[in-house]
C-alpha cells in the first residue's frame, strides 16, 4: 500500500465552498520519519478512508478528504466521481445513495453531512493531488507538514479517472464489538492491578478537547504503583497514555512519535477506526485481548474489505 500513487496528470480542481469544522487531506500517512520526530498523520479512521477510496476505484491509501463533525461543501470544476464513507452527501440538495459512489458534474454543489461518528471521508476517482511532503500527502495538523486544513475558496488539485458505480456491502464486514479491544501493556506494570481492572470495567467518556492527536477520556482515574517518570519512549497509534492525573489519552494518527507517559494498553489495529470516530460526550469501554486475537480480527477485517466493495 503505497502512500503516494504513481503520478498522473492533474486535470481538475475541487473548489472549497465551505470547509466545515476541520477538513484535511489525508493519505495513509507519512511513514519512515518517526525517528526524526515526524508524526505519521494519516486518517483517524483508516477503514472508512480506505473504503471511500475503494468505492471510487482508487488504491486504498490514496489522498482523500477527512471531515470532522461539521462536513465541507465542495464544488468540483470537472465531471468526476465521489464517494463518502462515515456520512452522507447531497448533490445540489439531492441526497446521494449511502455508502456508494456517485457521479458529480462540474459546477454542482456537494455537501457532506457527517455521522453517526465524528468523521467522514470523501474520495474522488483519481485522488487528491498536490506536492507530497516527505513522500506523503497527509495533512499534519500538529507539525504543519503537508496540505493545510481546507479554507474557503481553496482549489484542490485532483486527478480525474473514469470510475464505474460501486457500493459498499457493510454486511460483509465483520460486526464491530460493543467494546474496544486493547492489548495490555507495554507499561501496565506501572499501575495498581485494581486500576487496570477499572480501565477494563469502564466506561470512560470522550472529552471535548479531543483532536487528531489524541482522544482524551475521563472516568475512574488510573493509579500508578510506582513513583518517578517513564523514560521517553516511542509511541504507537492507539496507545492509552496515562498522564499523572490518571485520565487516559488514546493517541490518534497525528500523535508525536515519542512520549513520556506510561502506556497501560494499546487499542487493537482492527478497532482504531472506532476510536477515531468517537464524538465528544460518548462513553467507551475496553476489553483486553491477546495480541494473537487482535491480529486475527485484523486479518479477518482486511480479508472482508477485499470483497465488501462491489
Amino acid at each position, binding site marked *: 500500500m503505497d502512500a503516494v500513487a504513481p503520478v498522473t496528470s492533474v486535470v481538475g480542481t475541487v473548489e472549497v465552498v465551505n470547509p466545515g469544522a476541520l477538513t484535511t487531506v489525508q493519505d495513509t500517512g507519512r511513514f519512515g*520519519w518517526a525517528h526524526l520526530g515526524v508524526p505519521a498523520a494519516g486518517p483517524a479512521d483508516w477503514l472508512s478512508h480506505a473504503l471511500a477510496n475503494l468505492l471510487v476505484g482508487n488504491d486504498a491509501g490514496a489522498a482523500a478528504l477527512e471531515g470532522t463533525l461539521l462536513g465541507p461543501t465542495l464544488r468540483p470544476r470537472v465531471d468526476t466521481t465521489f464517494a463518502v464513507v462515515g456520512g452522507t452527501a447531497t448533490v445540489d440538495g439531492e441526497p446521494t445513495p449511502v455508502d456508494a459512489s456517485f457521479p458529480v458534474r462540474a459546477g454542482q454543489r456537494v455537501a457532506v453531512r457527517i455521522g453517526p461518528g465524528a468523521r467522514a471521508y470523501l474520495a474522488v476517482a483519481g485522488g487528491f493531488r498536490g506536492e507530497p511532503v516527505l513522500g506523503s500527502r497527509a495533512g499534519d495538523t500538529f507539525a504543519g507538514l503537508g496540505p493545510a486544513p481546507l479554507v474557503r475558496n481553496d482549489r484542490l488539485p485532483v486527478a480525474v479517472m473514469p470510475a464505474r458505480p460501486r457500493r459498499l456491502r457493510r454486511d460483509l464486514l465483520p460486526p464491530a464489538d460493543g467494546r474496544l479491544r486493547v492489548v495490555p501493556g507495554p507499561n501496565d506494570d506501572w499501575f495498581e492491578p485494581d486500576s487496570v481492572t477499572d480501565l477494563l470495567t469502564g466506561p470512560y467518556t470522550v472529552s471535548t478537547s479531543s483532536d487528531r492527536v489524541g482522544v482524551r477520556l475521563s472516568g475512574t482515574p488510573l493509579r500508578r504503583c510506582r513513583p518517578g517518570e517513564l523514560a*521517553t*519512549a516511542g509511541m504507537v497509534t492507539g496507545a492509552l497514555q496515562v498522564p499523572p492525573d490518571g485520565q487516559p489519552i488514546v493517541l490518534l494518527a497525528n500523535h508525536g512519535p515519542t512520549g513520556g507517559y506510561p502506556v497501560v494498553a*494499546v487499542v487493537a489495529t482492527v478497532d482504531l477506526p472506532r476510536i477515531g470516530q468517537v464524538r465528544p460526550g460518548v462513553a467507551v469501554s475496553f476489553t483486553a485481548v491477546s495480541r494473537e486475537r487482535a491480529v486475527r480480527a485484523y*486479518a479477518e477485517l*482486511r480479508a472482508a474489505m477485499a470483497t465488501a466493495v462491489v
Partner: protein
Amino acid sequence: MRLRLAGDSALLVEVSDTVEAHRVRAALECARAEGRVPGLRETVAGQRSVLALVDPLACDPARVERVAASGVAGTAPAAEPRTVHIPVVYDGADLDWVAEHRGLAVDEVVRRHGAAVYTVAFLGFSPGFGYLSGVDPALHVPRRDSPREKVPAGSVAIAGDLTAVYPQATPGGWRLLGHTELAVFDPKRTPPGLFEPGDLVRFTPV
C-alpha cells in the same frame, strides 16, 4: 533487554541505556534494509528503548527479538557515529539567568556548552527536535515554570541534563543560550533533519 508488546502493530524493546538503544536500533534498521525481518516498518529510538513499528499481518515478534538481542550483544554490525557541527551565536535570552543560577561567568557557560560532545539520544516534540545528552553537570538547570509561547527557530537551549536546537518556532520551556543560522529541519532536504539518533554533536561559538 526485554521485549514488550505495544498492541499488535508495535513492539517495545527495553534496554538499559541510550547507547544500547542505538545499537539495537542500528541492528534492526540493518536487518530491515536487508529484508531479514519481514513486516518491520520503522524503528523509533527512546531514552532506554526502541519501538519497532510493524505490520501485524507480516511480522513475527520473535524475529524482532532475535535481531534486537544481537544489537545488545554487539554481534550486529554497527556504523561509526557521525559528528554534526553546529555554529552558535551565544546571545540567548536566558544566558545571564543560567550564569547567575549556576554561579558562573557568562563566558564560562559558553565555554562549557561549547566544550562538550553531545549524543543525539532520540527525537520528538517536533520534526527534527533532537534531545542531546551529555550536558556538563555545571550547566544543569530546570525548565522555565511556564513555557514561552514562541521560541524562535534555531534557538539553542538547555534543560536538565539535555540540550537541543528548536527546529521550528514553537512553544518551549527550555533555557535559551543562543541561536544557530542552520536550518535544523527542512522537508525538502535529504535527509530532512540535521540530527539522527546516535549522532555526535558539537557546538562551535561564532
